[in-house]
């Protein structure tokens, strides 16, 4: 005797698309695209029209096509390549260092109550102190070179990933841990097979926050004390009144942020196929 499931089995409709179906599907894709990106396209179109017709001062808001030309020109002649490379390097080193310290420390603090209790007050103090306010201190200690820039980005980037990891570990369902223990799992096995995988979604939330933070701090640090980098180029273009180039650099930063986020989302979807939250 086997059990007859009360739940209907999964079924997939047999695909046999006719011309009308393909057309309808095409319409659906177009509509989905329009609802998703319509407002964005409208915003860019409004900008273009407003700048061309003189509704806004085109010296401050140049038309989109001029910005695109400036961006293309700067990318094509390689004048921004060095800046992009140095910016990526600064943000990248800081991000990797913050993740390399934040995740293990967060896992430790989330697991061991004593360590969390001892470290929490000082971490709260550090977190509430603006990284930019500390930048002068870092410059005094580390000099005006690369180290202080990377360090200030690292400092600000550390906290989102650290706090998200601690939160993730602490929020693991105690009932799952008890289940694993009831099958004879010891502390290290519980950690490896239950706590770690259960924390992955929360860790990814932290990674995405940290990636955004690292780019924010990158620009601020480059605007304050650098002679290279995308943030420096934004400031420099503004000083020299190359407004299309300024917007081009700003656009480039936005693209960097979107790209970083997209990479992390793709990685998250790959690692957390099981999770509803990541879909």
């Amino acid at each position, binding site marked *: 005797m*086997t059990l007859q499931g009360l739940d209907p089995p999964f079924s997939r409709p047999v695909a046999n698309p006719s011309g009308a179906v393909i057309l309808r599907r095409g319409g659906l894709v177009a509509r989905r695209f329009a609802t998703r990106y319509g407002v964005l396209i409208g915003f860019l179109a409004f900008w273009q029209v407003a700048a061309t017709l003189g509704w806004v001062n085109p010296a401050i808001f140049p038309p989109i096509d001029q910005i695109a030309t400036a961006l293309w020109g700067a990318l094509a002649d390689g004048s921004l390549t060095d800046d992009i490379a140095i910016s990526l390097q600064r943000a990248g080193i800081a991000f990797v260092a913050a993740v390399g310290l934040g995740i293990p420390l967060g896992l430790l603090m989330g697991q061991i109550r004593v360590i969390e209790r001892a470290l929490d007050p000082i971490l709260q103090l550090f977190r509430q102190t603006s990284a930019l306010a500390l930048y002068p201190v870092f410059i005094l200690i580390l000099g005006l070179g690369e180290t202080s820039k990377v360090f200030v980005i690292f400092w600000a980037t550390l906290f989102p990933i650290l706090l998200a990891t601690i939160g993730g570990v602490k929020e693991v369902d105690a009932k799952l841990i008890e289940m694993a223990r009831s099958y004879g799992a010891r502390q290290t096995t519980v950690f490896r097979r239950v706590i770690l995988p259960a924390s992955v979604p929360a860790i990814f939330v932290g990674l995405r926050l940290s990636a955004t933070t690292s780019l924010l701090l990158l620009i601020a640090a480059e605007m304050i004390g650098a002679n290279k980098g995308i943030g420096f180029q934004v400031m420099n273009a503004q000083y020299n009144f190359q407004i299309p180039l300024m917007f081009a650099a700003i656009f480039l930063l936005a693209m960097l942020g979107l790209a970083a986020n997209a990479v992390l989302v793709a990685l998250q979807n790959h690692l957390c196929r099981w999770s509803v939250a990541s879909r």
Partner: protein
Amino acid sequence: MSAVETMRRGEISVRGLAKSFTLNGQRLNVLRDLNLSVAPGESLAIVGPSGCGKTTLLRVLAGLELPDTGQVLIDGVPVRGLGRERAIIFQEPRLLPWLSVLGNVSFGLELRGVPQSQAQARARHYIRLVGLADFETAYPRQLSGGMAQRVGIARALTVQPEILLLDEPFGALDAMTKLTMQEELARIWREEALTMVLVTHDLEEAIFLADRVLVLQRENMGAPRLIDISIPRPRDRSSGDFVKMRRALMAEFGLH
């Protein structure tokens, strides 16, 4: 003692067990001087009002909690914490959401050091036994409540315990699924020759599944009572004996 008796294991014996909790500064004696023995292969149901200590008793049997005094012996050996000869089925399925059905069912065996391929082979057998062969690769979020609970049951059976401890396993299921699952469990218990201790709120479930029912009362409301359920199996819920037994059991709680 005959050879057959020595072969069959899974005997539980509870001696002078007491356990109390302190709740809002008040001492609550949930279990007091409890003595009980469960024969190998027997099915015992524990019923009683909430707060009577039935789940506490099960958790002590499981080794998840320690008694204040007294002891639990399994096959004559005092229990110290969790043990391989016992498996627990909780009220919630407690599945790991990142593992497939197959991964969840083989999880218990893998924790006990069985190589993955071997664990999965045995897991597949029990997945078939609970009727989920087509869902091996599904993730828990794709399963209904009844299917998820069946995965939990398969996981417990896969470690081939002598004693199955169930804490209101069907409490969260709808009425239809619950009936099917009770029949499933009765069949599995018979086929696997397990000792089974089942905590439940549902008197009908207790009568359907158990050889004996332990009725616990709240503190100062009377001593625990053991009631034999001598209805032949497979049991029919609408038979005269069954209905009579249900009426008798309800009377224990002052219900008519």
